């Protein structure tokens, strides 16, 4: 493989890695956009999604790219319960409560998952394990192509939902002006639970793609991705879905590019270096809007 080939391959790995970040970041942004809450336990929804997909796949043999739907549905239900029981009572009572609540949730989900599935690292083999297809001069795993395609499909579906459906429009209205939405008769509490559930479903999708890509997972896997997801939404602009998409892609490519040029130890650091630069130059993030 020549230098250009290696570079293109690295960009491709960045695109694929970015897909998982995009789904996680978009879900987090959806929740933040509507409810304005900080949920540090969002990575645990990715973890649970990963385990649900892996468990169903191992027990039934159903293709994990189909199980993703079940995993997303399960996380929507879990998300609805968490929103209703945990976040709704403290909504508007201060960021400190949200932070401590989400830290509590992290412990609950991590220890709960460890009790159910054990705390060893696990992995599964995708049904398309070992199949590679030529893309230009590159030879890439079929799973990565499916992951990129599936992410695009989910994002298009989300776009249509937000733009074309009544609930989607109500979510956008609530995101733009919560009081205004209430005044025109939108049931914002209903919108909150839908947004939170959708955000969790996107995290479940990210978790599913994580396991089918051949990465290992355990109950503590969510802590690093959630920090990156926060960096992505700040980078892209708080509450901005296009911002989360661009931020996720940038993050994936920058991380892999940096690992190539500077070494793997800089992989995590570069995300935050970019974040700091963007915040200095444009404090609202790439797609964030100035208030007032």
């Amino acid at each position, binding site marked *: *493989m020549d230098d250009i080939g290696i570079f293109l391959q690295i960009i491709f790995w960045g695109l694929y890695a970015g897909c998982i970040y995009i789904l996680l970041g978009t879900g987090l942004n959806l929740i933040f956009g509507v409810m304005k809450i900080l949920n540090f336990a969002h990575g645990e929804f990715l973890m649970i999604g990963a385990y649900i997909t892996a468990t169903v796949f191992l027990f039934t043999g159903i293709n994990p790219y189909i199980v993703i739907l079940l995993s997303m549905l399960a996380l929507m239900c879990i998300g609805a319960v968490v929103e209703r029981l945990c976040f709704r009572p403290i909504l508007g009572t201060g960021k400190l409560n949200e932070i401590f609540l989400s830290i*509590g*949730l992290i412990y*609950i989900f991590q220890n709960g998952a460890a009790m159910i599935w054990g705390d060893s*690292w696990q992995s599964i083999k995708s049904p398309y394990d070992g199949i590679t297809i030529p893309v230009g001069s590159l030879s890439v795993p079929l799973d990565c192509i499916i992951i990129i395609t599936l992410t695009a499909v989910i994002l298009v579906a989300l776009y249509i939902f937000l733009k074309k459906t009544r609930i989607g429009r109500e979510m956008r209205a609530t995101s733009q002006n919560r009081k205004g939405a209430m005044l025109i008769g939108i049931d914002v509490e209903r919108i909150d639970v839908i947004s939170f559930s959708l955000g969790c479903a996107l995290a479940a999708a990210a978790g599913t793609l994580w396991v089918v890509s051949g990465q290992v*997972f355990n109950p503590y896997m969510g802590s690093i991705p959630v920090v990156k997801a926060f960096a992505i939404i700040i980078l892209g602009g708080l509450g901005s879905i296009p911002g989360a998409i661009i931020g996720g892609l940038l993050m994936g490519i920058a991380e892999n590019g940096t690992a190539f040029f500077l070494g*793997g130890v800089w992989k995590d650091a570069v995300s935050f270096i970019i974040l700091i630069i963007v915040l200095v130059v444009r404090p609202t993030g790439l797609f964030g809007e100035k208030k007032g």
Partner: protein
Amino acid sequence: MKLQVLLIAVLLIMAAFMAGCTQQTPNQQSNTSASQVLKVGVIASLTGPASNVGNNMWQSAQVAAEKINADGGVKLKDGSKAQIVLIVGDDESTQQGGQKAATKLITDEKVDILVGGYSSAVTSAYEQTIAEYKVPYIVTGASSPIITHRTDIDTSYVFHHVPTTDAYGEYVIKFIDQVIKPAIAEKSGSASDRPIRLALLYQDTAFGKGVQTAVSDTIKKNNLNIDLVAQQSFKMGESDFRTPLTTIKGSNPDVVFLAAFPNEGAPIISQARRDIGLNTIFLNVINNDNAQFYKDISQYGDGAIIESMFSPYIAPAGEVGDAQNAFKQAYYNKFKTYPDMMGASTYEGIFIAAKAVENSGTTDKASVRQALVDLKMPQVINVMKNQTISFSPDFRESNFDLWMEQLSYNATLGETRPLIVWPDNQKSTDFTLPSWYTPGSA
């Protein structure tokens, strides 16, 4: 509203309870009919990312203590016999957790001796406490030589009973030079003086850097004809290695040496063979020889090499092999799974602790420390140099004899299984280059 607040409180209490469960200390794990007890503190990662290895260490310690107690216990100077009582401290796979566990075992539980310690970073963090209270500590997990080489604190009470990263690097490089190099020359028909192209992928921690240093030092010290064509690092706990592997592939290596934990080593090899098409020989350090690694690596492990001193699936011939098999069986009977090499060194660590107390005839910590310094006991389940466990006078390190295993895929099991291929006095078969192997090129 009150109901909701109550529910949240209940959930948080549940969280605390569940966290407590995993940290719960099984205080008395054996009968204590004897009048005296020897309190052995075991520091292990029962929770957190290293819990797989940590639980293995703790469970192995239990098997050892049960065997010693069943054989009558530890003989003291006054003729009485003490039963071993194990008390576990969970380091939670973190430096803070390690500090908490060590302090609790020493000050609250007042243990006579400590065994265990996984992750060099975590273990180093509480060595100051060991130095302060002067409690003999047999480290059986952390592999960085820094554990007993550091000079910023007094480590005279710390004894290292697990191969260090210096040994990791040295054995693998010698194996490459003596076995793999001639095999590649034969297969590719290249000149015998062609240097072997070695790539190194290492975890960016004291452990990984220790292996990196050992690799370059061994090459330099022995003036070996080995070129280090790529050195890539990754963060501990990483799960996507495609980028460093792509870079390594670009360097056209003959072999790739991995300084990684099992949860990293298995995905590295799978991603390299499956996604990158890097059809080469992967060499893994000693800590990868555990059952989960074989399960995770599946068919992609075929042809790979693992450095080892204890394997869940094979044992060397002779008495020590019988002892290993007996330990594996006892462990399996109790826990329905197999121990790994950190478990094996911890198992032996309990025997060392018992022997040191027996030799000193007392639980006085200074006397036990001196007994460890003077220790010369027959090997228990690991193959030691001169078949004897003793600690070096300079850095209090024991001296293991390691071997190399080559994995071959068993389609019926759906996993690979190892066979010893080096050194000659222990091997059961010869090393072979797989048919799919592609040698590197300049």
